[in-house]
């Protein structure tokens, strides 16, 4: 595989979806949609999967993933906590799913749930980056792969000195690895 550095594959911050702290989930999802439309899909078939949250100094303070947005749809009350707690008593996944379904039917129509979730604040569902989620722009790709795999991250924040300048997405790393594999097989 060609000797890639992280900076070769990263998406610059300016091309990524970002919203300021205090935005709603709806605003974050709209920012994601806009970034997708403007993103150059000629060079990659993969779309963005997260929104970065910036503070008033334009510094990244968190990442809102698709999973984070979906988490906002889950009810949060004692009843649902009890259902989620059932797993530790040795009940099967099917039983827990059937209880979730029963609860969802009792809880009412999903449109209301979507409306409520759309008004929630991004900081309640974002994840602050951990130490292992930062990678310097001049790091070799092999090293970054280790960081992605061992930390089970979907992306890494790319730094130049103390500043975040981009994002290294697992999908782009995978595409590079995939092409390298293909080339080496064809060449025999």
């Amino acid at each position, binding site marked *: 595989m060609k000797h890639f550095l992280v900076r070769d594959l990263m998406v610059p911050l300016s091309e990524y979806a970002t919203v300021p702290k205090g935005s709603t989930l709806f605003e974050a999802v709209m920012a994601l949609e806009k970034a997708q439309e403007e993103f150059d899909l000629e060079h990659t078939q993969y779309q963005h999967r997260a929104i970065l949250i910036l503070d008033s100094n334009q510094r990244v303070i968190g990442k809102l993933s698709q999973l984070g947005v979906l988490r906002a749809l889950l009810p949060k009350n004692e009843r649902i906590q*009890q259902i989620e707690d*059932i797993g*530790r*008593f*040795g*009940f*099967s996944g*099917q*039983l827990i799913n*059937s*209880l979730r379904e*029963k609860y969802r039917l009792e809880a009412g129509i999903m449109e209301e749930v979507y409306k409520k979730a759309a008004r929630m604040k991004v900081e309640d569902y974002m994840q602050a980056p951990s130490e292992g989620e930062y990678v310097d722009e001049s790091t070799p790709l092999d090293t970054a792969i280790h960081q992605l795999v061992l930390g089970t991250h979907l992306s890494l924040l790319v730094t130049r000195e103390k500043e975040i300048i981009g994002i290294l997405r697992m999908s782009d790393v995978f595409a590079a690895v995939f092409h390298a594999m293909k080339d080496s097989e064809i060449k025999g």
Partner: protein
Amino acid sequence: MMMPELKKLLDRIIQRVNINLRELGYDAGPFVQGIIPFNQMVKFYAFYGITPHHPLNFQFRHSNLSGSYFLGRCRVTNSLLYKSDIRGDELKKKGDVFRFQNFEIPISEDEQIDIENSFLIKTLVHNYSHDPETLEKFFIQDVISLHYANIHGSPSEGCIFGPFSTVDLTTIHDCVIGAFSYIQAGEISHINIDPGTIWIRNPGKFNFLYRYPKERLANYVYFNTGSPPQGLFIDFVEDRKEAFQRVFDVVNIESTHSVPSSASLDRYAVIKPHTHIGENVLVAQRAYLQNAWLGKGANAQENCYIINSRLEGFNVTAHGGKIIEADLGQKVFVGFNSFLRGRPDCRLTIGKESIIMPHTIIDIREPLTIPPCHLVWGLVTNKQELETNSMPINAFSKIENRFSKGDMIFEGTGADFVSAFQNRINHILEANGAFFNGTENRGHAQKNQNISFNTIQPYPEGELEGLYPTVIIQP
């Protein structure tokens, strides 16, 4: 400082329990420091029973045993036992064979209850170790067990058992069991169980779970740091505490109650007027009967209260069961620590062969009838709640796969669950001697009739004040 040795012992026990529970981030100290004042621990004698039917081997070392009772083989080391019953009359004997899965394991020596570094308060220890890895030793070590807990056939290590909790036929390591929880799950470790959790699991066969609504359970039992357990259960037993003082204060007590020759009435039980005891009845120590009618083969185990009630016969009232203003048909089973309370003007009627599951609360202010052959669980205060928290036994037996009703969930085969209960009820009746016919099927009711009781007491003052001297009693 008052009783420095007892304080050192308590600190050591708390530390050992905390070390075991460090993964759960639990500190037992604030819950148990001062819960029983040390001056209470020198007030009461300990006593042990001698019979020709139970192997004799008591070993007590560096412990306080205040008001506690011992039967069968047991060893207590570095522990505080306050008004607890260590009842070793169902321990395995040398030569028995223990069956587990496809194994037939011979018992190489008489089983022993082995209590070490533990603090048991008003706790019942009974039955035998069901752990195939430790068949000759029923161990209880680094355990704090609070008021009216039951450790039943459950080797335990590094745990705290909340008030009125029960661990039954379960090997248990490093767990916190909340107040009034009932756990029968084979083997568990490193779990913090909320108060009022009823969990019965036989992996691969069935799994039953019911959780009490917290606010409503708190009316019955509530326990937090800084004070002893509170609630209706504690008030109920405290109100009747005085009646026990007389039977414990008098060394040789003459029973004024006539009892059939096939029945057993423990001299440490309280029997109030208008009580009838039928043939093959077993009344254990610390049971309380008042205007109670017990038909043939019925029993009242430790810490049972049967008041203004009639039990038609072959009834099992498990340890800690309370039955007030109620009429029970034949073969009704009332599980551990259940609280069944009718009122004089609205009695509770339970039809024959019904199973009231362990830790059930039925507390009514209108008459209530449970039809025969029903399974009842959870909290029931009226007809609607009975509808939610009960089922005909034959309907439950038909459950395949999974089922939920109210706060109860079940997975597995209903028939296996029901037959496990029914077999166990039958076994209890057998063990208690309910089926004794004059020559065969002897059980506790016949074997426990002639017990000699000896008492032992602690150092009354000095450096070792409160500690019992090392005592070894063997044949």
